Structures are given as C-alpha cells and as structure tokens.
C-alpha cells in the first residue's frame, strides 16, 4: 500500500473509533465499545510498523490546503520520517496496551463509552501532533491534546465529594497548558516573521542556505518554543498541574501523563533541532531548568503517600532528565530515554492502577502492604518496573540513564553530580514505594484484605508485555562495548532518518570511562536496593504519619509549597485585580460616571427652571436689562470697534 494511503488510514482509525463510540456509544455494550477503541489503536500500530519497515528518508503527504495567501501557505500535510514514525509506534503501541488495560479497569464506570471516545480522540490529536509536517498542524495537535487531557482529567466530574476537585484539577491542567500554548503561538509568529513558512523541511533548508540568519531572533524563537515545552512537559515553572492531574482515572495518567502527552515537549525540541542548534544560550537554559526540575521533583517524591502522586513526581523528574540530555544537544539520547521511560512508567502506572483496582479505590500506601502474595503478577511486573526506573543494571532504564550520565560527564561535571544525586533519590523513593506497597503486613484492615484480588487477564496481559519491553528496551541503543556492529542502533537509526539530526553526532565516551561509569551507577542502584530492603522490610518501619514528619520530610510531603507559592504570586493578585476592575473601575468609575453625567445635565436644567420666577416685575427688570445690553452693544459697536 502506498505510504500516503497507510498514513491516512493510520490517522483515520482512531478518528473512526472516536466517531463510532461517540455517536453510538450509549447503545453499544461495554465489551464492543472497548474492543472497537482498542482495535482502532492497534490497527494504527500495525500500520505504523508497516510504515516503519518501509521507511526511507522523509516523505511529505499533503492532504489539503487550509489557507493560502500570497506569501504564506498553510496546508494540512504530514511527514513520515524516523522521528515521527518512532513516536507513532510508541503512542499507538503503549496506547493500545493501555486501551486493553482500561477495558478491565473502567468496567464498572457508568461513563464507559465517554472514556473510550475521549481516549481515541486523544490518540488522534497526539498522532496529528507527531505526524504533522509543519508547525501549524503541530499546534493543531498540541491544543487538541490539551483539550483531551482536560476532558479526561475531569472525567469523574459528578463524583459526590471529589467532583469539584477533579474538575478544578482539569481546569488547572488546561490553563497551564494554555500558558505554554501562548509561548508556542508567539514562537510560530516569529518563525513566520523570520522564514515566511512553517514547514520543517523548508525552514531547515533556509537555515542551511544562509547561516548568517542567527542573531537575536533565534534566541527568542527557541526560548518561546522551550516555554511551550515546559507547559506541556511539566518543567519547573509550569509543572504543578501534573501531580494534580492524577485526579483522572489511572489509565489516563498512564497514557497521557507518562507515555505520550508529556513527551510532546521533547518531541517539539527534537523536531526543531535545527533552530536549537543556532541558539546555544537557550540550550543552557534548557540544561539548567532540566537539572532543577529533576532534582526538586525527585525530592518532592520522597515523602508522598499517594501511590500515583509518587509516580507523577517521578515522571516530572524523569522529564527533567530528558531535558538535561536535550540541553547537551544529545537529541537521540533524550528520545531513547523517552522510549524506555514510556515503557517502564506506563508499566508502573498500570501496576498502580491494578493495585488501586484491587484495593477498591484505595490509593494511600500507608493502608497497603504485603500485596506481593495477594497480587503476584502485579507485584512481579511492578518490581521489574521499579528496578528499570531506578537503574538496576541490564534493564532498559539503566542503559538510557547511563547514556545521559555519559553526556553529562562529558560536557559538564557539575551537571553529572546533580544527576547522580537525582538518580539516587529516584531509586530511594521507588524502592520505598515498592516495599511499602508489596512487603510487610497488610495495613488496610481485615475486611478490605479479604476483598483484595488480582486483576483480570485484560489488565495483567498489558502489564506482562510492558514488563518484557522494559527489560529488553535497553537493547535498542546498547553502548559500544557489547556488540560492535549494532552498537547505538537507535542513535544511527534516528539521526539518519530525521531531518536536521544527520549533522548532529552525539558524543560517545571512550571504552574505559564508560565502563567505570556503568559500574559506579550499578553500585549506587544496588546499594539503594539493599538499604531500602533492610529499612522497610527488615526493620519494618513504615511511612510516618503527617504529624511526626521532621523538617525536610514535611517540606517534601508539602510539595515544597509550590502550589501555595503560585497562589500567592499569581492567582490571588489576578483575582484581586479582577475584583478591583470589576467593582471599582467598571461599576463605580464608568457606569456611575455615565449616570452622574446624566444627573448633572438634569440638575443644570433645574437651575434655569428656577430662574423663571413668575413675578412680572422680575420679567420687566430682565427686559430693561436686555434693552440696556442691546443698546450698549450698539454704542460700542459704532464708537469703539470701528
């Protein structure tokens, strides 16, 4: 099948799923809805693999022209190259697994069909974002994804107690994304102003043809692109929406807030690599924001007690890690970590989902414990996920993190030290989470204990597949020392196939240092494993209650008071200003001003009304007075003025 037809089909399947479930959802039985949605996404996955196998260079598929003016053509066209197909594979692959999982997970929810319609719409807009061949289509997908994440986060809106909280979390996510979107909008305007086109390929060629193009514009374009990335991928200034987004159902967190949407920011930076190469200063900003995010997020995750909150903060910190790689200009390394992260973070989220499902909507790890025996498969897959993320050797996380550490070691030792701290913290909170949930004795009360059950096959199957993927994910980009010829397969595949990346070669350490690096990293990971085992299982102490947290722990539990800071700095002043303008300026000043004007006219009329007193003598007096003035005027006119 020709490439453009497969692409169109790939895009239209999720749309079809959305349409069918959307319109007929109410009447269809649950199984049919779930299977339509999953098959739609899985079909796209198969088409993506076929496109992947027939990939050669970059092909542009132009569907139709949206707008054309003399100097600017906007057309809905898509681009098939290594980067976009790889991202599609992740989205549709992990997406179909999550769809499968959510059939089981959402089975008892009454808004079942609505959930799958929104999920399919999300996959569709994410595919548009990734496959677009110009920034306009990217912006299309970008906002569409924001909308779907709003719909999915505030999915349980009519829940009795938490209904309002869920919708507020959705709104917070949407507004924070919107702030990022404004950055993207401004970047697009500058790009149009600079290059008069939005097509990636055309911009790339323009840059190649006249290198002298740089100057300040590049800095501003790349900076606003980065602002957009922070908005969507939850970096330091705009990250507080992600932990609150856990209000949505778990498959949503798995799909959107682990695997796909949050990686949009990284995709945007990699896609516009030719712009970022021209703005070294922005790359430094990205580096340091990434470092700050990964450190703070890891710190915050240390003392969280909600299973999903811990994973949310760990996502923010892993994203920080990816931006550090981007800061060094190692685009392919960042993408490699995106891939492995998608596997093990989706696995962890789905694992936590199945735990919550088993524990009947209980999310607090202080009430869990000893679930290893009760939920064997979830326990085993969750263990693999934890080990992958904390960098236990020979798992996917180990390799991708090792690559980033190598970049850090090569470029900037301070960054390396910070990364080492962050990675150890990651290992600490992950193992804390693992041991507290799955080991020790059950703290959730006996009658709950009896009801805890292992999730059904539709939930455990994706867990197993994802576990396999997170084990063997590392093979994609093995460092040189194992198999000479296929070393760094992923780097070569990506840089060859994506536009603009072919000039950038990520640095590879020499043999000796990379061995030392790996050994040191595995020692760190294993020692944390042992320490955690001793601390949580042997000594058996569990997460403390809120009241007896000491200094730094209270700080971490309260999320470094970021939300309160935002409220004080931004939210409350805006509300105060709005109150002020609303009440004072609009009502008092303007509206009453107009009424006062009207009353003023009325009063002045009164004065002249009184002048007509009704007394004849006063009239006579004014008549004589008028006569005098009249005659005097004529006398003056004749004598003085002429």
């Amino acid at each position, binding site marked *: 099948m020709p490439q453009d037809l497969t692409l169109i089909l790939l895009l239209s399947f999720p749309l079809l799923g959305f349409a069918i479930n959307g319109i007929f959802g109410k009447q269809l039985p649950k199984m049919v809805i779930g299977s339509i949605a999953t098959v739609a996404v899985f079909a796209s996955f198969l088409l993506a693999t076929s496109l992947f196998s027939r990939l050669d260079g970059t092909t542009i598929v132009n569907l*139709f*022209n*949206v*707008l*054309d*003016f003399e100097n*600017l053509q906007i057309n809905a066209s898509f681009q098939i190259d290594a980067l976009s197909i790889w991202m599609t594979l992740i989205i549709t692959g992990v997406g179909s697994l999550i769809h499968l999982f959510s059939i089981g997970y959402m089975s008892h929810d009454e808004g079942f069909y609505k959930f799958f319609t929104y999920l399919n719409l999300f996959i569709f*807009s994410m595919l548009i974002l990734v496959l677009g061949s110009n920034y306009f289509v990217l*912006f*299309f*997908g970008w*906002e*569409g994804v924001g*909308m779907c994440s*709003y719909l999915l986060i*505030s999915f349980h*809106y*009519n829940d*009795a107690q938490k*209904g*309002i909280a*869920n*919708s*507020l979390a959705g*709104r917070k996510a*949407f*507004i924070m994304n*919107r*702030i990022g*979107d*404004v950055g993207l*909008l*401004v970047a*697009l*305007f500058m790009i*149009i*102003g600079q290059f008069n086109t939005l097509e990636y390929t055309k911009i790339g060629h323009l840059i190649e043809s006249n290198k002298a193009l740089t100057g300040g514009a590049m800095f501003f374009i790349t900076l606003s692109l980065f602002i957009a990335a922070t908005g969507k991928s939850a970096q330091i200034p705009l990250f507080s929406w992600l932990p609150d987004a856990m209000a949505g159902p778990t498959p949503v967190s798995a799909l959107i807030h682990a695997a796909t949407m949050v990686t949009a920011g990284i995709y945007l930076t990699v896609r516009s690599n030719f712009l970022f190469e021209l703005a070294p200063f922005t790359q430094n900003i990205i580096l340091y924001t990434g470092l700050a995010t990964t450190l703070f997020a890891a710190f915050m995750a240390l003392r969280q007690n909600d299973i999903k909150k811990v994973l949310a903060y760990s996502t923010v910190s892993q994203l920080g890690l990816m931006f550090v790689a981007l800061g060094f200009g190692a685009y392919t390394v960042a993408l490699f970590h995106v891939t492995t992260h998608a596997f093990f973070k989706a696995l962890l989220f789905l694992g936590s989902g199945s735990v919550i499902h088993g524990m009947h909507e209980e999310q607090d790890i202080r009430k869990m414990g000893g679930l290893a025996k009760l939920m064997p498969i979830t326990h085993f897959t969750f263990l693999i996920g934890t080990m992958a993320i904390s960098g236990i050797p020979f798992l996917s996380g180990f390799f991708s993190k090792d690559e980033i550490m190598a970049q850090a070691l090569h470029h900037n030792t301070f960054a390396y030290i910070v990364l080492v701290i962050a990675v150890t913290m990651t290992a600490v909170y992950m193992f804390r989470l693992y041991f507290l949930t799955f080991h020790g004795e059950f703290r959730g009360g006996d009658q709950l204990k009896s009801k805890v059950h292992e999730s059904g096959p539709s939930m455990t199957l994706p867990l197993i597949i994802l576990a396999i993927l997170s084990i063997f994910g590392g093979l994609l980009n093995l460092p040189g020392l194992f198999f000479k010829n296929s070393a760094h397969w992923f780097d070569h595949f990506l840089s060859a196939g994506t536009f603009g990346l072919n000039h950038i070669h990520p640095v590879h350490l020499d043999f000796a240092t990379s061995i030392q690096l790996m050994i040191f990293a595995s020692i760190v990971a294993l020692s944390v494993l042992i320490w955690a085992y001793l601390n949580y299982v042997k000594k058996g102490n569990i997460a403390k209650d809120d009241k007896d947290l000491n200094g730094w722990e209270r700080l971490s539990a309260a999320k470094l008071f970021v939300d309160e800071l935002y409220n004080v700095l931004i939210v409350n002043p*805006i*509300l105060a*200003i*709005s*109150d002020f*303008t*609303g009440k004072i*300026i*609009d009502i008092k000043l*303007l*509206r009453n*001003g*107009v*009424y006062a004007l*009207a009353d003023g006219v009325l009063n002045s009329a009164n004065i002249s009304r009184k002048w007509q007193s009704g007394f004849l003598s006063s009239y006579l007096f004014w008549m004589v007075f008028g006569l005098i003035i009249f005659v005097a005027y004529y006398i003056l006119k004749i004598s003085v003025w002429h």
Partner: protein
Amino acid sequence: MALILLPLVFSLIAWLLPSAQTRLFGLIGTTINLFASLISVYGFDAQDQLFIDLGLRYVHFSLDSLSYTMIILTNAVFFMVYLSNFKQEITSKKRFSALAFLMQFGLIGVFSTNSILGFYIFWELTLLPIFLILYWFGSFEKPKALLQFFLYTLLGSLAMLLSVIGLLQLTNQQTYEALLAADLNAHGATSIWLMGGFLLAFAVKIPLFPFHTWQAETYTKAPTAGTMLLSAIMLKMALFGLLKWVLPIFDGVATEFWRWPIITLGLIGVVYGALIAIKQQDLKTIFAYASLSHLGLIAAALMLQNEITNQIAIVQIVNHSIVSIGLFLAAGIIESRLQTRDITQLGGIAKVAPRFAFWFAAITFVSLSVPFTAGFIGEFFLIKAIFNAHTLSGIIAATTLIFGAVYMLRAYQIPMFGPTKNSVFEDLSWSEILVFALLIIAAIYLGLSPKCLTDFVATSINQPTL
C-alpha cells in the same frame, strides 16, 4: 431585490397575523429569508457587484461578496434565534416577530446599501426595534439602564450623522465608489474629525473600552432572544462599517491618526473584559464581557488594514456570532429552567441533564477557540497581525487565550459539575439540540476549511470596487 424587501413584508404581515400563528410564522419567515439569500448567493460570482435600484433618490443598494456574507450571516442568526427560542413564550408575541423582521430589514439594508446616507438611515432604523424589544420583553427594573443603552447608541449615531453631513459637504459625493475616489487627505484635519465621528459611533456599538458600560447591564437584563440579536449581529454592523466604509474612505491621514488609539482601546478592552469576566457571578455578564474581549481583538486587527487580516477577521466575526448564539442560548436555557443565572446557586446540572452538558461543553470549547474550530484559525492570524505590528501588544492580545480559558471553564464548571443543587432540570428540546448541532457543525466546517469563506470575501476586501 426580493432579498432586501422580504423582511419588511414579513414584518408588516406579522403585525396583522393573529398571535396564535406568530410563532410558526416567525420560524417560516426567517427560513424563507435564509433560503432566499442562499439561492441568490448561489448564482453570484464573487468578483462582480450587483447594483439594485429601488427608485429611492438617496438610497441605492449594491451587493458584493462582503455584503452577501454579512446578509447570509444576518439571516442565519435570525433563523437560529427563532429556532432556539421556539419554546420560549417571547416568540409567540406578535410585537416581537414584527420588530425582529423590521430589524432584519434594517440590518440587510446596512449591509447592502451603497450610499453613505442609506448606511446612516438603516443604521438608525435597527436601533428602534431592538430598543422596543428590550423595553417590552426585558426585565429592566430601573429604566435607567435601558435609557443608558438607548442614549449611548443615539449619541454614537448623532456623531455619525455629523460626520456623514461633513462628508457630504466635503466631497458632495453620495455613492460608495465616488466617496472612495474622493481624496480626503487634502482636508487633513477635518477628515480626522469626520473619521472620529464614525469611530465614536462604532466604538459605542462594538463596544470599545470606555464606551462599553451599557453592554453588561443590557445583556443581563434583556430577554435571551434580545441578547442574541444584540451580540450576534448588531455588533457586526459596526465592524462591517469599519471594514467597508470608514477605513477605505478615510485611508491615509485620518486612519494614520486613529490607528493606534483604536488598537490600544481594543487591546485594553481585551484584557479588561477578560479580567472582569473572571470574577462575575452572573452567566450572561460573563459572556457579555467575553464578547467585549473577543470583539476588542477583532476591532484592533481591523485597524491594521492588511488584506489577510481582514479576510480572517470575517472568519472571526462569523465565529463570534456562532459562539455568542450558543453561549447565550445555554444561559437562556439555564435561566428558563432554574429561573436564575447566578452560578453560585447552580451546581451538578451535568448529572441531571447530560445532553445539555455535552452541547454546552462543545460550545464552551468552540469559544475557547480549540483546534478544529473557526476560532482557532481566527485568533491565530489576528494575534499574528497584531504581533507583527507591535510585539508587546501582540503578547497582550495572546493573553486572551489564557484568560479566556480561565473564565469560560469557570463559567462552565461551577454550574455543571460538583454536587447537584437542583435536581429538576428538563433536558434539551429538539429545537435547542438542532441549534447547538448546527452551530457546532458550522464552527468545525469553518475551522477545517476557512478557505471557502476567505477566498469568497477576498475579492471585495482587497480592491474595494472602484
């Protein structure tokens, strides 16, 4: 020719008809108007211009692609207003349908007239019916608010009358083409004053920042049908006047003088309207300030006099009409069923009326100019135009996206989500669903292929027919 006189005929018939059939007659009348305009536009080639002479000495008409678009928009708006208010008792009143048709005639006159005097006459003609509708069917406790609206618009149109007279004196030309040819730059100062008069009238009507105080109170106190007519189509007269008449005629010295003041006013209006909308309690006031903010952006973009922006402004105008009908319909539905629009007293309607929740969410997203909708294209290019003109003001204009999200979602979420406060809320009737569906389809169609509208309108915007 029938296109113009049809509403007048219907208005007269509406007076004579017994009030039992008025509701149906209103609906049929507006549909006939709509189809008449659609049929006549079908055979119309975008380039040429149709001259129609009704034998009146001072008023003659010419239809070009821009006026056709606006006429179809007017007829569509009236059709939507009738369809959406079909269940309300307002449409069964004889006076309402008569006045509505008269207003439609006035509006079509404004959009199709070719002489400056005709433009003024029809501009005045539309004011009276809307005032009477508001007076008879509005819930104005103090007549002061209504009087404020009437006097404000009157003041505006008086300023315009002075400018029209000044214009006639200066160029003693009547028709649009002649006025275009007359070069006003020679009379520098006076042309600035004349343009000032027109702009004052438009500033009151749009409304631009300092002249907007009448809007919030009138919208909240007016009946839903009245607010829809006011916000969906009455404001567009001013924008149309600005785009077709004032900017081309006063091109040069006067526009140079007025360009940046109006843009600043527009941008102030954008931020000001959005800021106030955040804290308002009443749904209709929130939507009133929202439209103040949207229109401020359009007015500012129009002043930049660049072809692309003008074409996109038309897309945004149509989008704003769609959004305002939808939003005010939703507010009207909540008001008609629960007798209150104060969002603090509402809650959890989504559980009781899922269909209404879905369509209200759809309209809210269209107003948030989310992709696939016309608003997305419109706001993208308008903000780009302002950004190219002046970076800082571009960023200020872009903030409408953020504030828009804040107040629109707040307006949607508080009544819809959370614990159900009032469980009796009868879901949508067929006519309301049909209106919502038509609005969403129109928004998506325009969002996906705005080309159909921009190309159609391009000819008459770029080189005003000389």
